[in-house]
């Protein structure tokens, strides 16, 4: 038996997956090079088994779960953005369709007349509202501030993905 043949079997022999036949055993007894290889392969096998295994830190699971919350939130945000965009496009198409229909049926002329009437009525309306204008503006400012705080809390309250 040649060294080359035995060398191909060394790893299997070292691991015990191959049982040496009489020829291989005789060769290993006679050939120092192949018996050294076998002993080296066995040493490698033992060393590979004994290599230290990295262990996750105790907080690993919690950290991953926090990460997935962030992933989910980002995914929901993306979905919201697409939904809003699609809705805006749909509304624009509907508005354009209505306008086109009104134009075809001659309703736009009537609508323009109405707009002109409303335009002329606005100054009169303003005069009536003027005394309570500060109150209305303050109320509107409060509503927008509340909405702004709610939006800010929603954004900052989300966990961020660690780097």
């Amino acid at each position, binding site marked *: 038996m040649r060294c080359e043949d035995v*060398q191909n079997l*060394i*790893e*299997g022999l070292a691991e015990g997956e191959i049982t040496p036949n009489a020829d291989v055993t005789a060769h290993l007894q006679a050939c*120092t*090079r192949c*018996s*050294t*290889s076998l*002993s*080296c*392969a066995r*040493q*490698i*096998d033992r*060393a*590979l*088994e*004994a*290599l230290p*295994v*990295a*262990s*996750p*830190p105790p907080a*690993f*699971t*919690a*950290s*991953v*779960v926090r*990460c*997935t*919350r962030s*992933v*989910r939130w980002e995914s929901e945000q993306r979905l919201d953005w697409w939904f809003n965009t699609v809705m805006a496009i749909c509304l624009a198409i509907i508005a354009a369709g209505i306008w086109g229909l009104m134009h075809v049926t001659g309703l736009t002329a009537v609508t323009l007349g109405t707009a002109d009437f409303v335009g002329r009525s606005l100054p009169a309306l303003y005069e009536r509202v003027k005394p309570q204008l500060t109150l209305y503006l303050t109320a509107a400012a409060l509503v927008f501030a509340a909405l702004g705080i709610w939006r800010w809390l929603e954004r900052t309250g989300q966990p961020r*993905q*660690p780097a």
Partner: protein
Amino acid sequence: MSDFDEAGVVRRCREGDEQAFGELVDQFKHLVYGLIGRTVLDHSRVDDLAQEVFVRVYRGLPHFRGESRLSTWIYRITSNVCRQEGAQPRPALSLDEAAERGARRAEPAVAERAFSDLEMRERLEKALSRLPVTARFLIAGHYLHGVRYEDLAEALNMPLGTVKTQLYRAKRRLREVLEGELT
């Protein structure tokens, strides 16, 4: 491992059950960590990469069809993450180079020499770093308890025989490198 209800956990994860995902992470974190720790060269990256694996698992769960075992799918993701990391400070030896080194390896004159365990570990880690990432992943998987040849074959999308052959070749390369150092 046998108490782990794979299908049930996957279903609960898909329903958004955070606790179920925590159970899944707990079940596989040691194996994922072990595989990555033994495959990548930069050990400071293990934590981030293990986290990346589970984030990918989380993202992929809605698309997981259950055609393979959950563990196999996770090994595949781990293998992909390791391969993408691909941090190899030195170019890996090609099989031809290794064969050439093998031809020049130890002769009977140095047969009596052997490495001490500590020396062997150090040299082995150096030799491992010269193997391609797939070979390192195979060796890591093979020597970690719980990873079967079949899992590795499916994870790496290779026939079972190829996995065994590649593993033997990787180990032979390790031996040839170490024997070469004895000369």
